[in-house]
């Protein structure tokens, strides 16, 4: 059985310099919900635009259901639905008119156009607003209309670039509930980019994390969390408590010292918080405290936690705030 999406050694270089993708290997099973996580500029959008045939990769190959996205782009375009991050519906016509125009652009046969539009409106819960001008829609409604437009062709793969960015929690939930129901009914493969870890955790079957154009970790949400093992000691320390240290009041030497301790698997500094990944919290805590004290570093609070997907992300991709390179557009 062919993979819904497979990419091998995919690279993309912009203007011969910026390397947005640097040898990406990726396999997505059919009927899977696949979440693609990464900091800004890590190559998420670039990968999606290659998979949706907008760009050619610089090298490597990508296939959708066995079809090469470069050589057989036209066939690939017929079986995918794509919702870009930005608004992709016309605001000065109604929701239904948008679906009608898109159904014609996508070549939905006249005989079942009406039915498909009705289905898409129902699937995204837009029955009450379909006849309204899109400019009167809320952000969540607009996003659902955009997804509805992608559902018109009953795609085998649905690509969503940051599908819920900028939406409030209620709207996000509504979008995902509609998507999950649609997926259940048609067995569509869903591939989405996101910044929201909770979304990836709740709704995806599998996750890949990309950083600096490379996939640094992949697996199911459970596998990824288990991969961090044990517990996390979260130490919040007071800033500016020591001279001659970096802006976080914490120097590389201290971080190295903690990483070298027995029982400590890794330590990540994020703002004024130090996350120490340990096998056994109770035994590791005294060692960590001792190491910090010997460096003259004081802290205000200590807590312990089980790893969440945020921790997984921080561990493998680094803090979200570390902007790297361009934004992939």
């Amino acid at each position: 059985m062919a993979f819904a999406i497979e990419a091998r050694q995919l690279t993309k270089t912009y203007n011969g310099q910026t390397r947005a993708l640097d040898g990406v290997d990726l396999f997505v099973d059919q009927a899977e919900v696949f979440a693609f996580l990464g900091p800004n500029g890590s190559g998420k959008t670039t990968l999606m635009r290659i998979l949706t045939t907008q760009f050619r990769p610089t090298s490597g190959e990508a296939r959708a259901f066995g079809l090469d996205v470069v050589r057989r782009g036209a066939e690939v375009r017929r079986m995918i639905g794509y919702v870009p991050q930005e608004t992709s519906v016309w605001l000065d016509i109604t929701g239904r008119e948008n679906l009608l125009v898109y159904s014609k652009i996508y070549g939905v046969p006249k005989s079942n156009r009406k039915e498909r539009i009705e289905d898409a409106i129902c699937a995204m819960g837009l029955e009450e607003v379909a006849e309204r001008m899109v400019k009167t829609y809320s952000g969540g409604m607009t996003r659902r209309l955009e997804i509805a437009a992608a559902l018109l062709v009953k795609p085998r793969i649905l690509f969503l670039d940051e599908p819920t960015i900028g939406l409030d929690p209620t709207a996000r939930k509504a979008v995902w509930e509609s998507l999950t129901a649609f997926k259940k009914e048609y067995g569509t493969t869903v591939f989405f980019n996101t910044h929201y870890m909770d979304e990836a955790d709740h709704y995806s079957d599998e996750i890949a994390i990309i950083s600096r154009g490379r996939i640094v970790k992949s697996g199911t949400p459970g596998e990824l969390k288990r991969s961090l093992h044990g517990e996390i000691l979260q130490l919040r320390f007071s800033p500016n408590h020591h001279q001659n240290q970096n802006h976080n009041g914490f120097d590389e030497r201290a971080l190295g010292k903690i990483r070298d301790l027995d029982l400590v698997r890794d330590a990540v500094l994020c703002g004024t918080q130090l996350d120490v990944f340990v096998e056994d919290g109770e035994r590791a805590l005294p060692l960590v405290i001792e190491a910090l004290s010997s460096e003259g570093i004081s802290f205000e609070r200590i807590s312990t936690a089980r790893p969440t997907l945020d921790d997984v992300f921080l561990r493998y991709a680094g803090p979200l705030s570390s902007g790297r390179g361009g934004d992939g557009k």
Partner: protein
Amino acid sequence: MTADDSLREMFAMIELEMRRLRHDRTEIYTRAIQPILWLAVFGSVMSEVRGIPTGGIPYIDYITPGVLLQSTIFVSVFYGLTIVWERETGILKRLLVAPASRSATVIGRSIASGVRAVVQALIIFPVAILLGVRFMPNPAYIIAAFIVLFLVSGGFAAISIFVASLMKTRERFMGLGQALIMPLFFASNALYPIELMPPALQYVALVNPLTYAVDAVRGLLISGDLSNLAVDVAAILVFDVVIFAVASVSFKKIIE
């Protein structure tokens, strides 16, 4: 991708434009004000001067084809703004993922703009009649004139899409759009015969597609002299084919 996909996208684009117009016609009305002023004020005043050889045609009648064309070209040249907006949003990305070819997107949008431009001209046309302009009383000629308007407007919309693919931002686009229209208008036979121009400007007028369009529309609507019609239409078609090709090629750049 097949010719069928491409044709379908073109028709969908025309339908989109018609639906937008149905919801909001304000722009079409406000854009009619300037050409009506050209006819009512400039045309009437200059008619009294009688300094421009028009071949016995009243001056207001003489400039009507040019004013009609200027107003339609205005619509077309600023059509690129829609494309710039669609680039800033995700619509263009989405159209690139549709089954139709990129050239179908460009030609479809250009034709859609041509349709919008013809609607613009249809608003000015009755006003011109009220101002006393005498059109050829032959429906076939009038229909043919509107086809010429449509063809040349589509070409200018393609220029606009081409410029949009280079400029990419609204501000830069606005600047260039403004800088394009008036020189095109003045360096044509819209307001005065080419023979009155300085020699250098005459050459510009000869490569200005507007000159051929004005000549054709003037022949069909006002003078009834169709001796140049074949040449005029051929020139407009060559202009359309060339600019559609150039805009289709450069369109790829717009999303990068």
